[in-house]
C-alpha cells in the first residue's frame, strides 16, 4: 500500500526501523525474560532525536504530527511492543503539557523531553479504572503549594520518568468537575514509587504505583485551571490513542512477518506448510487485517494532523480496531507456527502476550465502543 508518506516521514520511519532492528531486536527476549527497563534503548532514541518529533520547534523539538509519532511507535512495536511503550507513554505524559501547559511550564519541561527525558501519565487508581471519575487522590491548596495525598496504580514508566502528569481531586464535592491536573517531578519530597507489577506481556515496560504522602507541589505546577482535570485527561487520551493503535499495528505486523517466514520454511508432509490452503488463508486474513488496521490508524492520525476540532471517535475507532486486530493476528501467528509458535525460543508467543494490553489500557475496548457510540448518538442530534 502506498500511504503517500512525505520524504520526512519516510526518513523518520526508516530511522525508527534501523533502531528497532539494530538495537531492540538483539535484546527484546532478554528484556522480556528479565522484566528489565530498556534504559539504553531510550537513550539511543533520545540521541536520535525521536523524542523531538512530537515537541514543537520553539521547545527544541521538530514540531511533528500524530502520524509521525505513529510511524515511530509502529516500527519499534514491530520488533518489541514493550520497548515501544516506554516511548509512547512519554508522549502520553507529555500531551497534557503540550495541550494545556502555560509558557513557563512548556519552557520548563518540553526541552528536557525533547532531549530524551521520560514522562508518565497518572490517572488510574485501585478504585478508578474505567470509571476514572472515582479517583480518591486529593490535592489541597496550602499557600503557594498543593499537598497531594493518595496512590496511583499501574502507571507506565513509574520510577523511570522524570515528569508525571497526575490527576487529583481538588474539590470532591464538585464530582467530575472537581479534579485537577498537576505536573509532579521525580524526586519531589513525599512522592515515591510503590509496587512494581509483574505482567503477562510488555514486560520490559515498568508499571508501578505512585505514592503521594503529603507531597507538596508548587501552585505553578497546576495545569490549566482547577476543575479541568478530567478535561485534561480526556483530551490527552483522545490524542494519545492513535499511538496505541500504532503500537497494535506494529505488533500485528511483526507477528505476521514471523508467521509468513516460518510457514515458508517449515516442512510437513513433504512440503512447506505454506502450501496448505488452510495456512494460506490464515496468512491472507492476517495480511488484510493488518493493512486495514494500519489504514484506519493513519487516517485517524491524519484527521488530527489536518486540524480537526473533535476527533475522539476517530481516535477510539483506530485504537479499538487495531488492538482487536493485533490480538487476533498475534494469536493466529502462534497457530500458523504450531508448537514452535508456543515456545519462547520464537518471538510470537511474546507478541501474543504483548498484543493483549492494547485492548485494555488507555480505555478498554468496551470503553472505546462506548465512546464511538456516544459520538454516533451525538452526531444524530446535530
Amino acid at each position, binding site marked *: 500500500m502506498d500511504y503517500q508518506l512525505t520524504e520526512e516521514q519516510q*526518513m523518520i520511519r526508516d*530511522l525508527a526501523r534501523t533502531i528497532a532492528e539494530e*538495537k531492540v531486536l538483539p535484546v527484546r527476549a532478554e528484556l522480556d525474560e528479565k522484566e528489565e527497563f530498556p534504559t539504553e534503548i531510550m537513550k539511543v532514541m533520545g*540521541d*536520535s*532525536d*525521536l523524542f*523531538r*518529533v512530537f515537541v514543537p520547534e520553539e521547545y527544541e523539538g521538530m514540531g511533528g504530527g500524530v502520524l509521525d509519532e505513529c510511524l515511530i511507535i509502529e516500527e519499534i512495536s514491530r520488533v518489541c511492543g514493550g520497548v515501544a511503550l516506554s516511548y509512547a507513554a512519554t508522549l502520553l505524559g507529555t500531551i497534557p503539557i503540550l495541550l494545556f501547559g502555560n509558557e513557563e511550564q512548556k519552557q520548563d519541561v518540553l526541552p528536557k523531553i525533547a532531549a530524551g527525558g521520560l514522562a508518565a501519565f497518572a490517572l488510574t487508581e485501585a478504585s478508578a479504572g474505567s470509571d476514572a471519575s472515582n479517583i480518591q487522590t486529593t490535592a489541597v491548596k496550602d499557600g503557594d503549594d498543593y499537598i497531594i495525598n493518595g496512590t496511583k496504580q499501574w502507571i507506565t514508566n513509574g520510577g523511570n520518568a522524570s515528569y508525571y502528569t497526575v490527576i487529583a481531586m481538588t474539590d470532591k464535592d464538585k464530582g467530575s468537575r472537581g479534579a485537577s491536573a498537576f505536573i509532579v517531578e521525580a524526586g519531589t519530597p513525599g512522592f515515591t514509587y510503590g509496587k512494581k507489577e509483574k505482567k503477562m506481556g510488555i514486560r520490559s515496560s515498568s508499571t508501578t504505583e505512585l505514592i503521594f504522602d503529603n507531597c507538596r507541589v508548587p501552585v505553578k505546577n497546576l495545569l490549566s485551571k482547577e476543575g479541568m482535570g478530567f478535561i485534561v485527561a480526556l483530551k490527552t487520551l483522545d490524542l494519545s490513542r492513535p499511538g496505541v493503535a500504532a503500537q497494535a499495528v506494529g505488533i500485528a505486523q511483526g507477528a505476521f512477518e514471523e508467521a509468513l517466514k516460518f510457514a515458508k520454511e517449515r516442512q510437513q508432509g513433504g512440503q512447506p506448510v505454506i502450501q496448505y490452503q488452510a495456512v494460506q488463508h490464515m496468512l491472507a486474513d492476517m495480511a488484510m487485517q493488518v493493512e486495514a488496521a494500519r489504514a484506519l490508524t493513519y487516517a485517524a492520525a491524519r484527521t488530527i494532523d489536518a486540524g480537526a476540532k473533535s476527533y475522539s471517535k476517530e481516535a477510539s475507532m483506530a485504537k479499538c480496531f487495531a488492538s482487536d486486530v493485533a490480538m487476533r493476528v498475534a494469536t493466529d501467528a502462534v497457530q500458523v507456527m504450531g508448537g514452535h509458535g508456543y515456545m519462547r525460543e520464537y518471538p510470537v508467543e511474546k507478541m501474543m502476550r504483548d498484543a493483549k494490553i492494547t485492548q485494555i489500557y488507555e480505555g478498554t475496548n468496551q470503553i472505546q465502543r462506548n465512546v464511538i457510540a456516544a459520538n454516533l448518538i451525538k452526531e444524530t442530534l446535530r
Partner: protein
Amino acid sequence: MNIVVLIKQVPGSTEIKVDPKTNTLVRDGVEAIVNPFDTYAVEEAVRLKEAQGGTVTVLTMGPPQAAEALKQALSVGADRAILVSDRAFAGADTLATSFTLAAAIRKTGGADIVIAGKQTLDGDTGQVGPEVAMHLKLPFATYVKKIESADGGKLRVERLVEDGYEVLELPTPCVITVVKEINEPRLPSLRGIMAAKKAEIVTWSAADLGEDAKRFGLSGSPTQVVETYVPERVKTGEMITGTVEQQVDRLVEKLKETGVL
C-alpha cells in the same frame, strides 16, 4: 583540530560478482554502502571533534552517486563534505587514488589528522591510507584500535598487531587507519539526516586539484586490474596414513609425481 576522513562507497555485499564479458565488478542491483571500516573512521573523528573542537571534513573520490556516502557521514556529525569526481579519475589504482586524495587534502588546507579505514570491502588492498601519508610526507600508523590521547601536537595510539597491540606516538599532522575495535559508530539523528539532505556537497574535478593530469586515473596507474574473479575452491589433498616410514615414502613419491622434487 581539523580532521579529514577518507571514505569510500563500496557494494554492500561481500559476494562480489564479476561480469564475465568486461571483467569488471557488477554493481547494478547491489546496494552501495559506506565502506564499513570508514564508518569507524568517521565516528572517531566526530568524537575527537566533540572532545576538542575543530571540524571534520569527509572526502571521497568516486562517481557522483558517492555523494550519498558523504551525506551519511554528515548525518552522524561530519561538518563538511567534498566529492572528488571526474571521468579523469576512472581506472585509478591505489597509487593514483592516494595521489588524488592527497592533492585534495592539500586543497582543503591540510589537516591535523587524516583518518582512513584499514581497508575496503571491494578493493581490499589496505594501501590507500599509508600511500596518502607518503604523498603528504606525513607519519602514519595503521590498524589503530584506540586513540589514547591527542594533544600537545602529539597523537598516542594503540595499534593492533597479531598477538596484542603496540603503543605509538606520532607528531601531528599525521595519518592513521582504523580497525573496528576502535569504537561503536552511532546511529544518525533525525536532525542530522535532515541537515545532511539539505547540505551542499562540494565537488572538485581533476582541473580543480591543479596537478599533473597524467598522474590521475588510468594513466597514473602502474597497476592495471586485468581480471577480477572469485577464486574457485578446489578441494584436493590426501590424508597420508600408515606408519611413519610409509607416510614418508608416500609423501616423497607424491612430491616427485608433482615435480616439486
